[in-house]
């Protein structure tokens, strides 16, 4: 009964197929690749997926296939778990969302063995949120699976606001991802298809009619061609007519089989079908055979499916409501007999119009979705459970509580609040205090802080509030006020909360109150008081020994130290100790990862880059996911940029972009900043400029630190462009100046620890501006160097020293001071392993003949007595020319100078223009004669 041989010929897709195969085989920098095929129904997506899968399997890939369901309420990760089950891997619930992703990855690795893995997903438009997140996790390389993903998406679904639309729009920017839009066949291709199916016995006019009627849709064209071949004189006008006339030709039993499968959730297994269709074994098999022969049904090892979902949609309209109800009830009854598949059971009982029998399955589905961290799916189940119950049902109260909480967890804040409103109106509602606390939590998450604050106050005043609840409310309120930047209020509230928590509170409340107190004190310039409180909280958490409480407490202490207190060494120490402590308990993996992330960031800032590298490697071994993974990847990428490892930096940036395709606005700016930093080392000023300008359109005017970092990058890009003899973008420069003014205007209102950071960036911005304007003034750079020294951050300090020295040398003044600054910068750069930065220092030293250290060549290969011709060139152009004269290719020159091949090309063009030569040989000759 195999169906695949019955496929018509594959027409007009040879090129596409070859392209898809090659795209899937060539993995991107992260070892993954993906092709998404979009197109209208019937255009041949599934067929293309099948053909590709066969070729890839022949090429030695392990192939896993899954199909997403359109029952609206599929269970989390359905298509992937289903695919794994074919290989006898039943993924079990895990301790956390991240652990679950890790577990799925591990199963995928086992299935793949030594081979690369191809995951084929059909009908991805029906995929649930957790499946989409898993895909991004795998494509970002976090699962450590050498995976290629091939997925089909119905183009109709992408209209409007389908979540995949956004995901695909973001992913298609990556080099390792391709979105293939499968167009209908053109006239010639349609005729080719028709000719093949009719074995050439077709009149040209008829073939033309098929093209017109089908619009080049291969599925429709194929069916019309069969009508022609089988001698149906009048071609049907629509797909609907084609199939309805064919249904009429079916034997009665086969007719029932087709209708039954159309009402089922595919694939329908034989035993289930046997229970649904009341026929004797032999008759049933006969009927199935007929349905297959008439090309309605295909059969494989898992069961039966309709040949195309389009057919199911057509048939659905043909069935009387009463017939459909009966079929669904039979399905539900049949499914109840075996190991219950709750999502399917729920679907069929609902369609059978039996809400009370659907309810237990809906609730079971909700609970198992929660076990798999599919909060969106769980929320949908709890919501449909509510739809199945009436106001007088006693279980409604509990359902409402679940529905509200799940809505909150998946970010449906409005829904959560309205559920809570209904819950509070129930006769057996939870206590008023409990409701206030929950409402406050939901409101805070929805960003309605003023109302949230009022709710916490109401909870505190409510007479039924237990001492424990009161302590908890006060601690949350203090935390909220801290986030709002109301440090005095937060401080006062935290003091109260701490007192209450010490007597009646849980350790979690105590830690929360201590943290609020510690940070608010630090921001109010009373750091020691706050520090003592948080240290105490760590001790208390140590006594409780609960991993999560320990993790939170250590995290707060480490963040306070490395953040507002700027005591980075100790902060790093605390973070690492906390992580070790949790590791010794064998728990709190998420907190270990976060603590290590804090340590790595601190180590980066104090210039201990190789140490930071080692810490990040340990952290990555914890297999983080979601926002934690993004944070770590960004930190690691920052190191790559510093080390000058361009390829690794691009790889991590791509991984970040992949994860952010699923959401996560707050990480966009750090990503853009890194992109700008990387582009600058490569001499790609336009890229750096574009990244910064985009960043400027997305920063809030009160995010002064973020504006500071961005503005510095932007000004530096303009300054470097200027130094390379390229034009400065006047518009960009004007906007950067506005941003700096905004920062300068706002710095007075910032808390002291924040002010110190902003001041540092303001100095860097002022200094870069002097460079853009060609002032060659060492003074602002000297000032910036001192400020960053004071903050204990060697990298910006050394960078300032380089520019200070460069400006002084350009002015030919105070050469001795300049030389000292340059040597200091060089020592710092080499100690950190900052290769591109060190190279830049060396090139300045060579240009001005400053001795750096014993092993660095003092006399540059370039210049000395520059002839008039070479003096036309900028410094960068002279460096490029020197390398060119050595016979290096553009690529090699780019690698040596840490600039892109394309930029080298631009420089070479300028050099040719200025030297009035046309070939590399001529340019080399000019250079060698002059040197």
């Amino acid at each position, binding site marked *: 009964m195999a169906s695949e041989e019955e496929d018509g010929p594959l027409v007009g897709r040879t090129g596409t197929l070859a392209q898809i195969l090659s795209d899937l085989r060539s993995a991107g920098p992260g070892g993954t690749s993906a092709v998404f095929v979009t197109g*209208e129904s019937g255009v041949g997506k599934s067929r293309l997926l099948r053909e590709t899968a066969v070729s890839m399997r022949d090429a030695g890939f392990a192939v896993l296939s899954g199909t997403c369901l*359109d029952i*609206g309420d599929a269970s989390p990760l359905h298509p992937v778990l289903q695919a794994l089950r074919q290989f006898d891997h039943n993924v079990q619930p895990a301790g956390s969302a991240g652990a679950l992703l890790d577990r799925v990855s591990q199963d995928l690795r086992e299935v793949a063995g030594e081979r690369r893995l191809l995951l084929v997903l059909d009908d991805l*438009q*029906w995929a649930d949120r957790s499946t989409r997140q898993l895909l991004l996790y795998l494509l970002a390389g976090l699962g450590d699976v050498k995976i290629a993903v091939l997925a089909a998406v119905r*183009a*109709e*679904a992408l*209209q*409007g*606001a*389908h*979540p995949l*639309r*956004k995901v695909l*729009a*973001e992913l*298609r*920017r990556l080099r390792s991802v391709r979105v293939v839009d499968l*167009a*209908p066949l053109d006239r010639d291709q349609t005729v080719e298809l028709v000719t093949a199916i009719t074995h050439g016995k077709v009149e040209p006019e008829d073939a033309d009619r098929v093209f017109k009627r089908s*619009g080049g849709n291969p599925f429709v064209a194929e069916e019309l061609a069969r009508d022609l071949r089988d001698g149906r004189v009048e071609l049907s006008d629509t797909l609907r007519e084609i199939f309805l006339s064919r249904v009429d030709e079916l034997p009665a039993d086969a007719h029932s089989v087709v209708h039954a499968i159309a009402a089922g959730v595919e694939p329908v297994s034989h035993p289930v079908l046997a229970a649904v269709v009341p026929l004797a074994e032999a008759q049933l098999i006969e009927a199935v055979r007929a349905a297959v022969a008439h090309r309605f049904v295909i059969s494989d090892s898992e069961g039966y499916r309709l040949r195309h979902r389009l057919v199911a949609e057509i048939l659905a309209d043909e069935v009387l409501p009463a017939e459909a109800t009966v079929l669904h009830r039979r399905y539900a009854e049949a499914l109840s007999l075996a190991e219950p598949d709750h999502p399917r059971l729920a679907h069929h009982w609902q369609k059978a119009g039996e809400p009370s029998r659907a309810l237990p399955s809906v609730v079971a589905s909700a609970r198992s979705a929660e076990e798999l961290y599919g909060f*969106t799916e769980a929320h*949908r189940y709890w919501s449909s459970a509510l739809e199945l119950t009436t106001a007088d049902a006693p279980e409604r109260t509990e359902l409402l509580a679940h529905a509200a909480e799940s809505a909150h967890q998946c*970010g*449906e*804040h*409005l*829904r959560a609040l309205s559920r809570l409103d209904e819950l509070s109106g129930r006769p057996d509602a939870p206590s008023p205090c409990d409701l206030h606390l929950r409402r406050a939590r939901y409101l805070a998450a*929805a*960003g*309605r802080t003023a109302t949230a604050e009022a709710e916490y106050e109401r909870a505190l005043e409510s007479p039924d509030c237990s001492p424990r609840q009161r302590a908890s409310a006060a601690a949350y309120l203090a935390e909220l006020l801290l986030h709002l930047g109301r440090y005095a209020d937060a401080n006062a509230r935290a003091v109260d909360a701490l007192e209450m928590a010490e007597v009646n509170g849980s350790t979690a409340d105590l830690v929360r109150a201590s943290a609020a107190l510690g940070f608010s004190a630090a921001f109010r310039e009373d750091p020691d008081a706050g520090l003592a409180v948080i240290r105490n909280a760590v001790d208390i958490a140590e006594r409780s020994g609960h991993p999560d409480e320990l993790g939170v407490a250590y995290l707060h202490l480490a963040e306070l130290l490395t953040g507002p207190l700027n005591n980075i060494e100790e902060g790093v120490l605390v973070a690492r100790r906390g992580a070790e402590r949790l590791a010794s308990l064998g728990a709190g993996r998420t907190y270990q990862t976060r603590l290590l992330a804090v340590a790595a960031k601190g180590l980066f800032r104090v210039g201990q880059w190789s140490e930071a590298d080692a810490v990040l490697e340990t952290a990555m071994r914890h297999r983080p996911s979601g926002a934690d993974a993004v944070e770590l990847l960004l930190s690691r990428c920052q190191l790559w940029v510093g080390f000058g490892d361009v390829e690794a930096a691009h790889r991590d940036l791509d991984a970040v972009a992949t994860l952010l395709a699923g*959401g*996560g*606005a707050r990480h*966009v700016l750090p990503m853009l900043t890194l992109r700008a930093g990387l582009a600058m080392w490569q001499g790609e000023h336009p890229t750096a400029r*574009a990244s910064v*300008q*985009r960043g*400027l*359109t*997305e*920063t*809030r*005017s009160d995010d002064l630190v973020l504006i500071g970092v961005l503005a510095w990058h932007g000004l530096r890009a303009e300054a470097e462009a200027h130094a390379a003899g390229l034009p400065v973008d006047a518009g960009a420069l004007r*906007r950067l100046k*506005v*941003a700096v003014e*905004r920062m300068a205007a706002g710095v007075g209102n910032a808390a002291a620890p924040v002010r110190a950071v902003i001041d540092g960036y303001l100095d860097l911005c002022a200094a870069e501006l002097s460079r853009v304007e060609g002032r060659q003034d060492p003074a602002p750079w000297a000032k910036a160097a001192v400020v960053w020294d004071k903050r204990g951050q060697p990298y910006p300090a050394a960078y300032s020293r380089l520019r200070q020295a460069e400006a002084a040398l350009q002015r030919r003044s105070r050469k001795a001071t300049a030389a000292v600054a340059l040597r200091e910068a060089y020592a710092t750069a080499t100690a950190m392993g900052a290769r591109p930065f060190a190279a830049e220092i060396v090139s300045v030293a060579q240009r001005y003949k400053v001795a750096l250290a014993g092993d660095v060549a003092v006399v540059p290969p370039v210049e000395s007595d520059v002839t008039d011709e070479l003096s036309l060139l900028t410094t960068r152009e002279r460096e490029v020319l020197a390398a060119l004269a050595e016979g290096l290719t553009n690529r090699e020159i780019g690698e040596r100078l840490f600039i892109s091949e394309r930029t080298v090309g631009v420089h070479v063009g300028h050099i040719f223009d200025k030297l009035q030569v046309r070939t590399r040989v001529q340019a080399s000759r000019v250079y060698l004669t002059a040197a």
Partner: protein
Amino acid sequence: MNQSVWGPVQREMSDLLQGHPDDVPAVVEQLKELQGILGHVPPLLRGNPLCDFNQLYLTITEGVLERLYAGEFKDPAFLSRLDVEFAARYFDALRAWAGADASPRCPEVWACLFQRIPGPDCRPLPSACAGVNAHINYDLPFALVTTFDHLGTDPIDDSDQHHDYLEINEIFADAIPGLRRGYLEKWQLLIDTMNGCLDDWWQGEAVEYTRNVAWRNAQKLWGVRHDMTATDRERAGLDKTAAGLSRLLLSPLGSFLQ
């Protein structure tokens, strides 16, 4: 696909539409280039109705970008994303346009306007309004839903995002003098000539023009966004209503707006 729908600039058009801008500066760039290309579509050249809309949209987007750089929005990340999502839908409609009856994936409301590119000629104001109608009454609610979904927040009245969204009303009002209060009696008259379903949809919100309608529709779509069938039903409904209004604007009746 009908390859000649853009005539002599077919090539430039398909090259331009290869681009998928991902920030507001890039959207402005793409609209600018598009304006240049549209001006070469015969026979009306710069007088074609899409040119009128595109110019207006370009002006508005430049206004948005300026305010973003000036830090005038409360949640710039939201507004930037919204602007990009919003523009993407206009570019998608252009990409899907392959001529009348040959563009199943081009929303009807856009098809009404695109069909009129070769003529007959109509006045610039109603042409631009037809484009604004398609873009705001059809595209905007979906752009809002996608943006909120992506940022992980919901469309809440009086939120920072709602504030920023309304701020754009000002930019629109500045850019479309024809839609300011003084002209609204005519506008209302036009609406009155339509059938009842448009009246319901309009709900007398003429003064705020149609942008609050889009916000309300976005909230409605937000509630059903996980239900593909319901979303699609809403989508088709919005398309149909908005297309009706566009046809009216582009009919001889529409010309009395100007």
